């Protein structure tokens, strides 16, 4: 855990998504070249969501198979004569059930995308924590541990509810701690992840937006800020401003522009034709603030937010 004194924006265990929206925890992976690459850690909620989706598929599979059995023209078969066919169908059914119960997660995670369908929907995937290839052994270990993390608590819960007494209840609580392990560690890793040496990370499809700081246009518009006005804010506010400008909601922009104008003591020009639009004003302020903060940054002087001292 990061010490509370560390400014959050400078804490390199945190990062933001492509929209610059909110800060998320990062898992560092050291690649074989020795580069520390930040990966956004998948949250417990994302992982639970993916698991529920996968589990729905696992439950739906036998139902689908049985439906298929009724749809296909099997009523034409004389079961007394085609005994072998019945056996083969039963074997196929058992095999399929076995695969779904035991092999589903392993097979998908060994694939090129290293993610089950549920994980793909939530844009998360499995990676090797040591920075190397994700090997089949890792995938197998992390998924076999599901037995103690999911099926065992479930069984024990059933036993508790059927009057298993204190023993069942305490065993259930113990295994529940194992199941909820992701909530109690920084990497949000479950037991299988620790044993397999894997982590689950969030990999959204990110696009590169335009650079919002258009100093050329700002010079033409003639909006200027004094140093004192710019120093009213820090990096955190710059991030919020970027988010507002990328979303471009008129109501939000108007509200933010009003607040900034009040805080920095900005006077709109007397001539109403010269009053910049909210967006133009915000963009100019963004560019000025970013230019200022980045130039200080080059000197190693960073200011996390407006409450931080001016450096």
């Amino acid at each position, binding site marked *: 855990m990061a010490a509370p004194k560390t400014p959050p924006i400078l804490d390199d265990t945190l990062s933001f998504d492509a929209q610059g929206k909110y800060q998320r925890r990062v898992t560092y992976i050291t690649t074989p070249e020795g580069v520390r690459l*930040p990966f956004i850690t998948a949250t417990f909620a994302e992982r639970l969501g993916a698991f529920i989706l996968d589990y729905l598929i696992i439950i739906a599979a036998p139902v689908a198979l049985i439906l298929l059995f009724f749809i296909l023209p099997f009523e034409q078969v004389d079961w007394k004569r085609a005994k*072998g066919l019945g*056996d083969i169908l039963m074997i196929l059914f058992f095999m399929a059930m076995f695969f779904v119960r035991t092999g589903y997660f392993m097979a998908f995670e060994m694939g090129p995308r290293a993610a089950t369908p549920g994980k793909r929907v939530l844009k998360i995937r499995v990676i090797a924590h040591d920075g*190397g*290839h994700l090997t089949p052994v*890792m995938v197998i270990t992390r998924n076999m541990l599901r037995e103690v993390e999911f099926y065992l608590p479930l069984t024990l819960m059933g036993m508790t509810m059927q009057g298993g007494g204190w023993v069942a209840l305490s065993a259930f609580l113990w295994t529940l701690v194992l199941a909820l392990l992701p909530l109690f560690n920084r990497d949000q890793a479950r037991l299988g992840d*620790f*044993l397999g040496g894997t982590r689950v990370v969030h990999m959204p499809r990110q696009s590169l937006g335009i650079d919002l700081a258009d100093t*050329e246009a700002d010079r033409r518009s003639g909006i200027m800020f004094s140093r004192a006005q710019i120093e009213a804010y820090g990096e955190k506010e710059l991030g919020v401003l*970027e988010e507002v400008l990328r979303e471009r909601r008129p109501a939000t922009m108007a509200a933010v522009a009003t607040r900034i104008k009040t805080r920095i003591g900005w006077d709109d020009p007397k001539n109403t034709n010269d009053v910049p639009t909210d967006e133009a004003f915000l963009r100019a302020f963004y560019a000025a603030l970013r230019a200022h903060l980045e130039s200080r940054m080059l000197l190693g002087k960073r200011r996390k937010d407006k409450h931080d001292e001016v450096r």
Partner: protein
Amino acid sequence: MSDEDPAKPALQLKSQKFRDAREKDWRTLSRALDRLDQGKLNSFSTDELLNLPVLYRSAVSSLSMARSISLDRNLIGYLQGLCARAYMGIYGPHARFKDILTGYFGRQWPESVRRIGPEFLLSLACLVIGIVAGWLLCAGDQSWYSALVGEDMSGGRNLSASAADLKKTLEGSTDGLAVFSVFLMSHNTQVSIFAFALGVIAGIPTALLILHNGMLLGAMLWLFARQGLLVDFAGWLSIHGTTELLAIVLAGAAGFHMARRIMFPGNLTRKAALVDAGKLTGSVMLGVAIMLLLAGLLEGFGRQLITDTSARFGIGAVMLVTWTVYFTQVGRRLTLKFEEADHGRA
């Protein structure tokens, strides 16, 4: 770009110049990764392939640069995603299938099994004690049999069955038995995975599980012995049983190993010990799954087609010898080399 327009440079931020200069490379890399994701690796020319790691490294260096000079969150987020994707593209799960196979069967699997030798003996002891206990319990009091062997596992092999009935269950017949075999195979795999996973909880449940399975077997042995069919039953069992029981014992051993490493991590931190143990036991368990599949095939086909007891014993013995030789001998020289290399480094 910025140099072409003499009026502009003074007003451009350093982070913007940086972005202008490198954006083209990022876009190229992103497009290449899209093609990789679509599985079009074969459509890459040699130059493009050679260029890929270069682009990857330049993107990674761009990221660390951007983190220290730019406050554009969108840019940093994009680069982070790009680098992560590129890393996946280059270090993803795709290794050459043949290399994985030879590496695993030629070295990794037997070596892992050898490394959990003491735990293997413990697990084997649990099974043997279970068998003996199961037999003795049933011999002492018949009612133990139905308590140990549930209805779904017995398949008609209960106390009231006559010698003829029991003999019939040992014969090769395809009547539903193939289905039963597949059911047993999936059951056994589940048992072994469970035995392994329970190792996390100090290993005691693993021991209990192995003991219970041993007792089940002991009880059945007793039932058949009572009717004078011990040899026939042992033959029926050995054709697949040597493989299957070995697999279950190995799974238990893997569970014990995990328990030991969690409780006594030695010189490593507990987390590091856990990862280490996970890798080792994971390799064992992958093999266990393969062994159980093989056992299922032997059970489903071999046992139905081969009804002669001595032939069944023969196959069972051959399998046992094969496994013993495989686990004790294969990959030894390579292991030695690795150890030497490790010592050399230290």
